[in-house]
């Protein structure tokens, strides 16, 4: 049967009975756009039904003349990742930093109601290919000679659906067929072409990425601890630029693993090699050239929140890093990617424990303990590698916090099983950094409509209530509303600043010395002002100036005693 809905409407229906006047409304509201192609069984035709876009493969044979695009992390992570990919033989290019113009493109070409990491990152790719076309590259060439590589996940938040959003926005922008290659954060490469894939997410790739992210994380943290205290404005940025050039080159030209080293061989080689550690030691020397004034009293603001909003630097989080520094704060940033990796390992490990014994098939316990063992080993490796780089940089940065400790702190407030996003991490970090006197204030950045992050904020209200003295401010980030967001930060920062000043004043009293005396001693001993000089953290004291003053006083006392 062919459905009668799809036949043409008789004109007689469209006139007012008895008058012959054509009725414009009836004319207008006859139904258009109907599929008149009926299927065999009379239902709407299978031939005309929507199918998701066909995904073009990226093949090994195309690798030589294809540029692998990627991006969306901090500029430093992207730079080092580019080095790794080039070292693996790809023509790689990191996308420029995200921009409001890109954000607008994604709003125009993508779905409505997305979170801002989606808008910024998707729009950034669309803008890049559009700019490329505007510069004279043909659309066909752009599609044929570029692929975009991004992470995927099976998480419950829309991050797992980004891939489709890239494709949709590119489709609307006229770049149908542009290849989006997905490698899962826990699933490995996602390609099934029948031929060798052009992009291989193999062990070389993952070890390269992990090392690059480790280095980028450490540089990232380090520069944020220095910049507020630099004597010459711009010095830290200048050195960082040189550092990144050096490290990117290092990763690009790093000696590859022996081709037949195998899984265990490559892991062992990673553990045994010291070349990255040596490189970071050289980086530390470069930073040591920067003159600091550690006596500047500044509140330390710990930036926590959703992963991308934390790590991006620019309009994606209202330029929060720079804004805080401009307002006189020291920004304490996370080892975002390493924390994320250890978090995922922890979640998988605990998830396996929840299911222990449920699988009744033979060998279950062997598989269970093997899995746990693998995760434990991976955790140990990550921690060891991170510690090696921290030591190379002088040991001035706080070591990576154990995921078990974080889960324990969050447990009274949040069930860690609520996966996706940062779930219990935000709560745990707020408590940890407060309890260990590592920040004066925590600023949680969360994208507009971020699902998990919004809920944890509800729980933070209780956390703040139960920890007197804790200063916590959540900020919802999006592409607009920067001025008001900054005002709210200034509001909380006012209290944090007062807290830092009070701490300073009490500390100075505790030293029993004047600032001038302390400063004179430090000037006489410039080595203690070096960026990599490990000033001890004194219990209950947060600020760099206060800790430094106490240390200088101790040195003076020691000197006086001797």
């Amino acid at each position: 049967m062919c459905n009668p809905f799809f036949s043409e409407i008789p004109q007689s229906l469209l006139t007012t009975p008895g008058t012959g006047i054509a009725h414009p409304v009836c004319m207008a509201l006859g139904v258009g756009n109907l599929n008149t192609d009926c299927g065999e069984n009379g239902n709407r035709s299978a031939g005309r039904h929507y199918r998701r876009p066909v995904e073009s493969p990226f093949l090994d044979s195309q690798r030589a003349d294809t540029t692998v695009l990627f991006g969306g992390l901090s500029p430093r992570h992207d730079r080092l990742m580019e080095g790794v990919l080039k070292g693996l033989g790809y023509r790689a290019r990191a996308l420029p930093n995200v921009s409001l113009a890109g954000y607008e493109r994604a709003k125009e070409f993508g779905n409505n109601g997305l979170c801002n990491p989606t808008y910024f990152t998707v729009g950034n790719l669309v803008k890049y290919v559009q700019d490329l076309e505007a510069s004279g590259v043909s659309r066909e060439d752009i599609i044929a000679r570029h692929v975009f590589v991004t992470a995927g996940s099976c998480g419950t938040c829309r991050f797992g659906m980004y891939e489709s959003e890239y494709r949709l926005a590119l489709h609307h922008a006229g770049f149908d067929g542009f290849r989006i290659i997905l490698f899962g954060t826990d699933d490995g490469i996602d390609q099934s072409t029948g031929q060798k894939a052009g992009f291989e997410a193999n062990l070389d790739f993952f070890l390269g990425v992990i090392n690059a992210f480790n280095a980028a994380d450490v540089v990232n943290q380090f520069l944020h601890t220095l910049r507020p205290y630099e004597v010459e404005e711009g010095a830290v940025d200048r050195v960082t630029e040189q550092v990144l050039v050096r490290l990117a080159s290092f990763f690009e030209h790093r000696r590859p693993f022996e081709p037949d080293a195998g899984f265990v061989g490559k892991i062992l080689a990673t553990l045994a090699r010291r070349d990255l550690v040596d490189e970071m030691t050289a980086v530390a020397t470069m930073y040591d050239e920067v003159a600091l004034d550690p006596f500047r009293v500044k509140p330390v603001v710990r930036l926590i929140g959703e992963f991308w909003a934390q790590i991006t630097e620019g309009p994606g989080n209202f330029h929060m890093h720079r804004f805080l520094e401009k307002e006189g704060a020291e920004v304490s940033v996370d080892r975002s990617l390493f924390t994320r990796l250890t978090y995922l390992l922890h979640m998988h490990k605990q998830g396996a424990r929840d299911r222990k014994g449920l699988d009744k098939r033979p060998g279950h316990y062997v598989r269970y303990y093997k899995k746990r063992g693998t995760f434990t080993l991976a955790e140990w490796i990550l921690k060891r590698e991170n510690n090696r780089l921290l030591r190379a940089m002088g040991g001035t940065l706080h070591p990576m916090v154990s995921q078990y400790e974080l889960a324990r702190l969050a447990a009274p407030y949040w069930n860690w099983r609520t996966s996706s996003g940062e779930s219990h991490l935000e709560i745990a970090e707020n408590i940890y950094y407060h309890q260990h006197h590592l920040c004066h204030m925590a600023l949680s950045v969360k994208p507009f409509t971020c699902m998990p992050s919004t809920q944890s904020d509800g729980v933070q209200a209780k956390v703040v209530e139960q920890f007197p003295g804790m200063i916590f401010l959540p900020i919802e980030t999006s592409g607009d509303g920067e001025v008001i967001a900054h005002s709210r930060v200034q509001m909380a920062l006012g209290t944090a600043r007062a807290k830092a000043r009070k701490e300073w004043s009490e500390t100075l009293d505790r030293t029993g010395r004047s600032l001038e005396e302390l400063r004179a001693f430090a000037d006489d001993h410039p080595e203690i002002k070096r960026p990599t000089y490990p000033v001890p953290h004194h219990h209950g004291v947060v600020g760099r100036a206060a800790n430094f003053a106490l240390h200088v006083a101790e040195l003076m006392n020691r000197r006086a005693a001797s």
Partner: protein
Amino acid sequence: MSAPRLCVGIDVGSTTVKAVLMDLDTDRILWRDYQRHEGKQLSRLLALLRNLEAEVEDVRPGKIRVCATGSGAAPLERLIGAKFVQEVNAVALAVERLYPQVGSVVELGGQDAKIIIFKDDPSGGKRKIPTMNDKCAGGTGAVLDKISAKLGIPAAQLAEQRYDGISLHHVAGKCGVFAETDINSLQLMGIPTDQLMASLFDAIVGQNLSVLTRGHTLRPWVLLLGGPNTFIKGMREAWRANIQPLWKERGVVLPEGVDPDDLILVPEDAQYFAAMGAVEYAKAEPETVGAYTGLDALAKYVESGVADHGIAFSTALSESPEELAAFKERYRKEPFTPATFARGEVVRAFLGLDGGSTSTKAVLLDPEGRILQKAYQLSKGNPIEDTKEIIARLRSAVEDQGAVLEVAGFGVTGYAKDVLKSAFGADVAIVETVAHTAAALHFYQHADVICDVGGQDIKIIVLKDGQVKDFKLNTQCSAGNGYFLQSTAQSLGVSVDDYADVAFAAEAMPNFSYGCAVFLQSDIVNFQRQGWKPDQILAGLAAVLPKNIWLYVAQIPNLARLGSTFILQGGTQRNLAVVKAQVDFIRSHFRGDEAEPRIIVHKHCGESGAIGAGLEAMRVQAGKKPSAFVGLEQTALTSYATITSNDTRCHFCKNTCLRTFIDITVAGDTDTRRLIVGNSCEKGLVEDVASMKAIKQDVDATAADTPNLVQIQAKEAFRSYAPSLVADPLPAFAFTAAQKQRVALMQRRSDLRIGMPRVLSMYSVTPMFRTYFESRGVRAKNIVFSDATSPKLYKDGAKRGTIDPCFPSKLGIPHVHNLIHVKHERAPLDLVFFPMIDDVPSEVVNALGCRICPTITATPEATRAAFTKEEDLFAKKGIRFMNTFVNMGQRELFERQMYLDFKDVLGLSAEENRQAIAMGFAAMETFQATMRARARAELERLEREHRIGIVLLGRPYHADEGINHSILAEFQKRRYPIFTPASLPVDDDILDDLFGDEVRAGLIRHPREITDVWKNAYSANSNAKIWAAKFAARHPNLIAMEVSSFRCGHDAPIFAAIEGIIESSGTPFFSFRDLDENKPSGSIKIRVETIDYFLKRYRERLVREPQPTA
């Protein structure tokens, strides 16, 4: 030179500038001033400071200090040497000095709302908890300003406006745009302005209490600061009325011997607190901080205009004067020449009237559809009054020429159409979309796209060969609409008529981010701060309007997809600046086969709705019937009175709607006709029980005949499936403590009372949990659910909220509040069970996952925090709160999770637990089978009768009428059966009929698979929604209707896929997106009526066509 001992405190807010000159030693205020700046923040401040310099000799560079606070204060640091102080910190400093006993402060500013709560710190002293609204200015003075201006309330009258004793109506406080929409609807129903304003006060206070306090209790004493609190009596009363019940509910100890009213006070100089706080800040700073540098730099800055935008900006609305001149020439408005009449001529005309949201328009048409006369006027607040005036004007236009007007037919449209039809006897009342389409096609038969932008609504109608192919309407948000432009212009001191000229004069304009009018409002403040001038801001707003229309409302990036002839109409497009922006945008987004779009501004742009109504009247009255119109004389003599009080409240159901009676009297008549408005259902249309019963009978008959599976699901999900009691027998012997405890727990099962909130996934999984408990011996009557979602339930409980997620999630707290404060009070509950559901069994085959959205999963955790933050309310009430984390999609794990949590609550054995889970799953199957059987029967009937059914593409909680705003029920009343994704039958014959060909062709492996349309199939409810879309797309008697809640993170990524699935098949598709806590009745009504009209035409084709043979 001695250090300066005088300090000026400046507060540059979004609507006013305030300054105080204080003596730092004595804290004495020596001088003060307060002025509205109308968008000219810095120039008004300059004038104010010049006055200060003139009046006080010491105010000279180097002689005084200056500190500035407020949203516009930052530039003053470099312009006059002022030290910047963040406003909340400034207010806190002032309060700490002047009112040390204060427990909390509420300051409402023009764009900001701030709350500071002072709590005793265990380490001594006071701890300060400040909060401030984020970028959304809902719940602030801006909303009050805008709405009072719209209602034409003079400042003096607003100041005296009361709250106490005034009848309140529901107004959304969350968002200024929503509030405005609600007020507008109420106004058009004839609700008096005092009730509108009192309702707005209530909404603003409620919004601040539910969001801005972040769940903290406003402790006494409460200081009310800021313009609205200071100047408006009703605002103060609203705070008192709302705070005191909270104190009672939360057991706040009040100081003895003080009237609670006196604990909530407005201090002297309330409007100067931020400025005084800025001065207070100076005291703690070195004396060199804030050294006044004089006014030269500020004067230079003000005079030179925009010097430092600090943001991306565009050049002017036009490329060059020549281009602008060419545009103006091309789009020059054709002057309308009204018809002239001979003396004594009888002018037989059809009257069309559009009672719009902000204006009333009317036309007279001759029998050939030519326009004889037209009239337009801004609404004065009451549609009956407006109609009387505008008809009188049309009548005069004819009769002043000595002719006689005879109205042959009267058609109405617009928000007020139903009231006007009843009041004046219109022959026809048609929905606006239909009216606008008719009016466009009357003049432009080859139109492809009609874009109508009115005061409140944006309508886009897409045509093909003169037939409507699709339409898009803005949802509840009237972002960037006409009224927004108008009111912004007025607030910047520019009249609407001058808007275009002023905007065209701007040489540059800021780039507004499109999307939300409230955010635009925030941007305006931001841009003003950066020095943008009113003309530039107006140009920027005109430029952003097309983005809101085509990208935000229509969501169409390539306009060539729609066709090539665009008709622009609606009052807003009388503004040439808007038209210029529209033309440029359409051209730049028209990516077609080298073709150029044809863009026409309707020659009767503002009156197109009225013309459409007139044409419709002409059609229905053609040639015969006498018009039902009451007549011109009677119209002029019509008077009316409105009554809204407790006496008008409807008591026919638990909603107890506060109705308004409009009694209409025509002079000379003894009878008064009563119109009833403000009712939420048909029962409220009458006053006596007998009439109500007749209506109810009719409604019930329709409901019985037309199943609404949304309602059925809402009912079936929470009923008892009466499982057999298969609990273990009590152990004969109990020796150990554990055995004894188990016996005690088992004995207690029958008395255990368990409360569960009626929210979120509970709409799909409750049969599992209910059966789990009942099968172990918990009595069915002891399983208690929170009440159905209602505005009252939400309002009562939302004040504990600390975050602003999607509305369905926000309901977690109010529903648990209802369990504690209503259900528990009636009969004590032992525990409240609100499971954290992480995944569910998958209904879709070969999906990658079946997870629940993380917002839903985590809601019980956030809810628990809300009730245990200041004190553990559960413990206090003797209730155990259990939010067991469950993976229902992994049965063995689920069994373990339930066992671990409930073994010590119910005294369960592992085997008992396993059986209970099995029985729960069996109940789930029965629940689904019941709905599917009902749906199958209805589908078969639809096929037999060639009728249309609607598939709701929504999530389980959209079965909650408090969330779906009864939209589906409206369609049921119009006799469309409603199906839910879970109800769609999965019998082999049906699946084979719909999907068999595709399975056999290898496009999919299973009929219940979605891999062909959606790759990232992780979310259980998204997967179900997508499969339902596929089902609807393939079934000839079904059409699809998507509903989605604002901020839904799982819906956003699948919007395009859903549209693709439905539209590729040619299936009619409608959507209600961004549903939120407010019910935008006006917008819903227009959509429902439009869709109904559309579907009627659609069905007519089915009925008239020859029936197929088997």
